[in-house]
């Protein structure tokens, strides 16, 4: 199955390291466009391809070696000043980088990369020979210098003879001129000595998803790099916990043996408190081993933004901030697509063309800012552009036209609520779907992906000044702060992130509107849904308390009997047996098992029923706090 039997470890290491290298190369390429003569940059990029080539050789990934080799040769010329960078060359280099990345994708699914496009290889070679810019063919000497020994004959040059001839160690009879030694190998490579190609084929712009190449994303990285200091801390804590356990075992023996003086009980109290502290420290430390700086994700984006801007004839710079912010590894992977989409969206729809910007007195270069920061127990991600902003009126009109909301509903929405309409499935204001962001993926998918991570998204926009997309995410997916509510004496856990407030339900204030219970909270009419009914139980008494909850789609009041407090739940998933509406289970301190409710699932059933009364149109609640 795998082309790499017995080398999986090596392959994983290589991919991780080589991916980092390539991202670094990508960023340096973006910098290089700004300062094309920077020798340091050229050298670094050269070394990047060179190093990847070296590693690929050991994996027998010959196709990868070929692309890297040709690109490296080109950079060798660039850094030596034999060639200078042109936009055509830059496009070609970008295409080569993309090919290398695609090949990493193939490698990560365990197959040897398929050959790069022949045109690209031809062009790289022609460019390195200086033919791309219709320069006169380089003098023969320079061509000879380019000769390369065949890669499949390791160490082919007769090193001993060469070494001897150079260092003068050889006995008189066997002196072999260095040039001869090399020459024998040169013939096979043929590299520099072919007649120059008449005209290079035009550079093919990288097609997205073109070719039969299997592209990355198919497989997830299943290894992680952890700072050894963090692992040491975990080790330390588990050692301490072991010691505390020993202490408890001995105390138990004492107590079971009838010893219950105040000293023993005090010692027990101390040991338990200590264990408490240690376990929560351990949980934190283990969680931290999963945390990775988000910069590893960010570093792919300047290149994506640049390619797209170039394609659209715009001048856009992606500014990164907060790359050191740490995010759960799984989350990083799941954030990749939504962020790419938001960045594409900003470049494509957000910012104006240079002409339009000039007409409005803005600098020609647009800035798109991608920022991450931690706020309390949340991670905030921001994608902001300095473009033309959004027109709330147009968005409302479009939503009505598309049948997403009714005219009356549109009239009740303020500007901020209107912006959130673009997150609805089936919404797209650009009449013509552009080649770029029209990949069949809408903003609704961004929202769905963010919600899967228990996060939320908010949009702000100011006409003429730009738009801001704000994503808020919990720090980790492993521990979920929950509110424990009671139905009778049966507890249920609700994700605390959805809870806005808790209020008593006074029966005489509940109004029946169209057969549904509603309650007015500070002027806002909210439906009251009884949890008992949501679960399909029979309602025996009227709920006494309401939990005002807010999901991305709607706000409502959940009727419950009482509360049992809040808790940090460690979620255990119910893998084989998962009833609808249950996200998982957790265990309370008294050993009781509690179901954690998946409000979205429960609600989707409930609201479908509710919505029938309103002519079937789904009504999004757009008030975002």
């Amino acid at each position: 199955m795998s082309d790499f039997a017995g080398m999986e470890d090596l392959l994983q290491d290589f991919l991780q390291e080589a991916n980092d290298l390539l991202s670094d190369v990508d960023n340096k390429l973006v910098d290089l466009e700004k300062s094309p003569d920077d020798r340091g940059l050229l050298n670094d990029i050269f070394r990047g391809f060179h190093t990847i080539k070296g590693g690929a050789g050991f994996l027998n990934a010959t196709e990868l070696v070929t692309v890297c080799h040709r690109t490296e040769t080109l950079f060798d010329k660039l850094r030596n000043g034999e060639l200078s960078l042109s936009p055509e060359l830059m496009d070609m280099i970008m295409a080569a980088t993309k090919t290398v990345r695609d090949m990493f994708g193939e490698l990560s699914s365990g197959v040897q990369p398929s050959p790069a496009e022949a045109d690209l290889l031809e062009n790289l070679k022609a460019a390195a020979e200086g033919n791309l810019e219709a320069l006169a063919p380089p003098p023969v000497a320079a061509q000879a210098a380019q000769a390369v020994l065949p890669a499949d004959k390791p160490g082919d040059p007769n090193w001993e003879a060469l070494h001897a001839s150079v260092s003068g160690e050889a006995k008189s009879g066997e002196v072999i001129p260095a040039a001869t030694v090399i020459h024998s190998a040169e013939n096979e490579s043929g590299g520099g000595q072919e007649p120059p190609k008449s005209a290079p084929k035009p550079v093919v712009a990288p097609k997205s998803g073109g070719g039969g190449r299997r592209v990355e994303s198919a497989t997830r990285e299943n290894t992680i790099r952890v700072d050894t200091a963090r692992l040491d801390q975990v080790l330390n804590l588990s050692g301490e916990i072991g010691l505390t356990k020993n202490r408890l075992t001995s105390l138990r023996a004492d107590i079971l043996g009838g010893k219950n003086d105040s000293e023993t009980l005090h010692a027990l109290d101390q040991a338990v408190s200590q264990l408490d502290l240690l376990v929560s420290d351990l949980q934190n430390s283990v969680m931290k081993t999963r945390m990775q700086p988000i910069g590893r994700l960010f570093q792919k984006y300047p290149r994506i933004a640049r390619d797209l801007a170039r394609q659209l004839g715009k001048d856009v710079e992606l500014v990164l901030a907060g790359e050191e912010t740490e995010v759960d590894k799984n989350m990083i992977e799941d954030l990749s697509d939504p962020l790419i989409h938001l960045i594409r969206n900003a470049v494509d729809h957000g910012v104006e063309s240079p002409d339009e910007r000039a007409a409005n007195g803005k600098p020609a270069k647009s800035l798109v800012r991608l920022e991450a920061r931690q706020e309390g127990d949340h991670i905030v991600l921001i994608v902001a552009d300095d473009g033309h902003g959004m027109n709330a009126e147009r968005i409302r009109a479009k939503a009505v036209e598309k049948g997403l909301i009714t005219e009356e509903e549109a009239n009740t929405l303020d500007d901020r609520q209107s912006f959130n309409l673009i997150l609805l499935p089936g919404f797209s204001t650009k009449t013509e779907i552009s080649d770029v962001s029209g990949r069949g993926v809408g903003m609704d998918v961004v929202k769905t992906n963010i919600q899967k991570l228990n996060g939320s998204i908010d949009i702000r926009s100011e006409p003429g000044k730009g738009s801001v997309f704000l994503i808020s995410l919990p720090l980790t997916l492993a521990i979920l702060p929950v509110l424990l509510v009671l139905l009778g004496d049966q507890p249920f856990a609700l994700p605390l992130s959805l809870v806005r407030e808790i209020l008593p339900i006074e029966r005489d204030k509940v109004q029946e509107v169209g057969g549904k219970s509603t309650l007015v909270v500070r002027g806002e009419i909210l439906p009251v849904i009884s949890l008992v009914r949501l679960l399909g139980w029979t309602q025996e008494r009227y709920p006494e308390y309401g939990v005002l909850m807010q999901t991305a789609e709607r706000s409502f009041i959940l009727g419950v009997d009482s509360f049992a407090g809040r808790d940090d739940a460690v979620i255990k998933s119910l893998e084989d047996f998962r009833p609808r509406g249950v996200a998982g289970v957790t265990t309370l301190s008294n050993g009781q098992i509690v179901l954690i409710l998946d409000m979205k699932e429960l609600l989707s059933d409930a609201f479908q029923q509710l919505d029938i009364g309103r002519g079937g149109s789904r009504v999004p609640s757009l008030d975002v706090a």
Partner: protein
Amino acid sequence: MADPKMRILVVDDFSTMRRIVRNLLKELGFTNVDEAEDGAIALQKLQAETFEFVVTDWNMPNMDGLTLLQTIRATPALQHLPVLMVTAEAKKENIIAAAQAGASGYIVKPFTSATLSEKLNKIFEKMAAK
């Protein structure tokens, strides 16, 4: 035959590559191996500790393999230290430059443990002959 306990320094900026070289050396029975990420770090290690053999990459940040080699040859305490250049550079001028700088051997990536063994033995033979 060389002492399998001989202390070897592997210099490469790509950790995967250090691991590969290390594994190949292990296959040949050499287990006393330390690593350095570039020429500058290697030089510090060479000056602070005792090594009997250096296997170095050519292209590295801070200090490349050739400069490392030249510095070794110019340092009285290190000048006789055998240095094997491991690199993907298979160009004539590179090979000549390595030879002129006093490399004990030159090996082109990728290579097998057999090739490495052959190169090492040649170097040991030459050293023994001196």
